[in-house]
């Protein structure tokens, strides 16, 4: 793993936005790009019209776009239509279409429950993502610091945790935190904290969320840590040496060298983690089904309970669309950054 990670290297980090590229990696481009190329090669940017050259990108993208349109676009459109319908068991079984206009949306947006759940989801996502990113970075840096053998050991442990099927992991955690027979309570009791001997972890909102957070963070950390480690190996030694020669301490090295270099990595990973944590479902549902008293329901759970669980599919569809809106709002900043970066990239081609 280590060897492959060493080489995977900045491959994890998108090439964009490296602050001051290392001398050896990018040869400065000659102004007339076309002149360097031998006549034998095909140059997309050269004057050669080749309609095939213009078509190539679209051809390459066609399968992906087609698949997305059919397999995602169409269900989404259908979902949108459903959200304006009253689709319950009866309509489903009898194939009826019962239009309701914006009734579903009015009901949801007017319900206090929806707004409370949304706020709760935002806070929950923020807390988890911060924990995952901070701890993930720390562990990633730790990996960089270790000798080969220890690194391999820790990497292996991380991968085992990451690869464990979510359903299985959730079940194990339920078991570990069981109030009467769980290992966690037993350990706490042995350590002297007797009040925790039969503590009911799913009894209150906060404790239930704690268990869920531990589960999600535990399973998400490996991805961040391993990728961060891989990314740090791309940073050329020269930068570190230069920084140290200027007298920088560990923290300053991090802020002046590591962080800027890996900014694209941080952005990309945070984006993904926000989405994954936001959409997390089995972890929350299996621990206490969104309880106690529906207090640990996040938007996806809420959508499921209101929609699929109660067989009110129209309502569920409406909530799911609102969920996407919320998620878009949360990730808007990163989307904008990425698109701006894209423009740079495109211009450099």
């Amino acid at each position, binding site marked *: 793993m280590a060897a492959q990670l060493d080489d995977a290297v900045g491959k994890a980090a998108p090439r964009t936005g490296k602050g001051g590229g290392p001398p050896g990696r990018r040869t400065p481009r000659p102004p007339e790009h076309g002149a360097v190329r031998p006549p034998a090669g095909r140059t997309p940017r050269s004057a050669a019209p080749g309609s095939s050259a213009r078509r190539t990108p679209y051809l390459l993208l066609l399968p992906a776009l087609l698949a997305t349109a059919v397999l995602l676009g169409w269900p989404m459109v259908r979902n949108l239509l459903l959200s304006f319908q009253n689709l319950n068991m009866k309509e489903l079984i009898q194939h009826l279409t019962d239009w309701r206009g914006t009734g579903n949306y009015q009901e949801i947006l007017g319900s206090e429950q929806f707004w409370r759940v949304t706020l709760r989801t935002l806070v929950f996502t923020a807390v988890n993502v911060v924990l995952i990113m901070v701890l993930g970075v720390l562990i990633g840096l730790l990996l960089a610091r*270790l000798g080969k053998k220890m690194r391999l050991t820790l990497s292996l*442990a991380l991968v085992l945790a990451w690869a464990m099927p979510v359903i299985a*992991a959730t079940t194990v955690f339920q078991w570990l935190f069981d109030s009467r027979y769980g290992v966690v309570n037993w350990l706490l009791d042995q350590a002297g904290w007797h009040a925790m001997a039969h503590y009911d972890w799913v009894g209150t909102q906060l404790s239930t969320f704690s268990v869920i957070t531990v589960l999600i963070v535990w399973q998400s950390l490996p991805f961040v840590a391993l990728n961060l480690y891989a990314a740090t190996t791309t940073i050329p030694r020269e930068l570190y040496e230069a920084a140290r020669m200027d007298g920088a301490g560990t923290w300053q090295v991090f802020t002046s060298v590591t962080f800027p270099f890996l900014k694209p990595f941080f952005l990309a990973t945070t984006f993904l983690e926000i989405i994954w944590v936001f959409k997390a479902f089995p972890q929350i549902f299996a621990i206490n089904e969104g309880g106690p008293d529906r207090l640990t329901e996040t938007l*996806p759970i809420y959508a499921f309970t209101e929609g699929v669980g109660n067989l009110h599919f129209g309502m569920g569809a409406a909530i799911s669309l609102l969920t996407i809106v919320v998620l878009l709002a949360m990730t808007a900043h990163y989307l904008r950054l990425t698109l701006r970066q894209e423009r740079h990239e495109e211009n450099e081609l």
Partner: protein
Amino acid sequence: MKRAVSATAGRLWPNATALVLAAGFVFPVYWMFSTAFKPTRDIITDEPVWFPFHGTAEHFATAVRAPHFWTLAGNSVLVTVLAVGLSLVIALCAAFALTRMRFRGRRGILLTFMIAQMAPWEVMVISIYMIVRDADLLNSLAPLTCFYMLMVLPFTLLTLRGYVAAVPRELEESAMVDGCSRRQAFLKVVFPLLAPGLMATSLFGFITAWNEFPLVLVLNKEPAMGTLPLWLSQFQSQFGDDWGATMAAASIFAVPILILFLFLQRKAVGGLTSGAVKG
């Protein structure tokens, strides 16, 4: 002398931390496997039984003897491998276009895929069900494969984009100087360097498709057309959760992924030509 001591001390705390962390990360996985081997009376105990001294294989037998297990396992493997394979090919083509080529609509297309990453699959189940039902394609592995492929596509594409972008154009260019066509340059030079990226994304894709439950529950009700998650859910029934069997089933369920990871990582290490990259 002093330097040697501090050097050792300097190695001590990272190693100690690493050990503690490793133990912490591995523990739930260990617990799953060890519970799978414990007899029922050792599972619900006041004091945890740390090691299955009275190990038994009965739970594994229960898990495997469940109806249609082997058929479902075969289905899972087939659907997952196809879905992941397809998504890799499609995503790679698209990633290449998105990083190396300039064309109109490039940013819009990228945005599309980033939004696709946010799709709320659990709640779209009913729309998908209605579409598949009305197209008369229920109880078939094909729609399942297609949808799993798409569940994985955005992430695969976005990740591979990063990996492709990280490969310097100079490599392609020098290959073309040496007489390769663009396609050949891609296959011979760029592709091997993507190995780690392909590994990461295929592992992720495998895990996603392997675990999926809500869609297969309603699309493939024919017992022989289901997948393993359906099999796994049966050990938590109204007779109560058979924890031993659940853990045994979960262990069996987890093993292919772990094997896949070990296999992939060895392949990825082999395919690297570090010299050309680091330059």
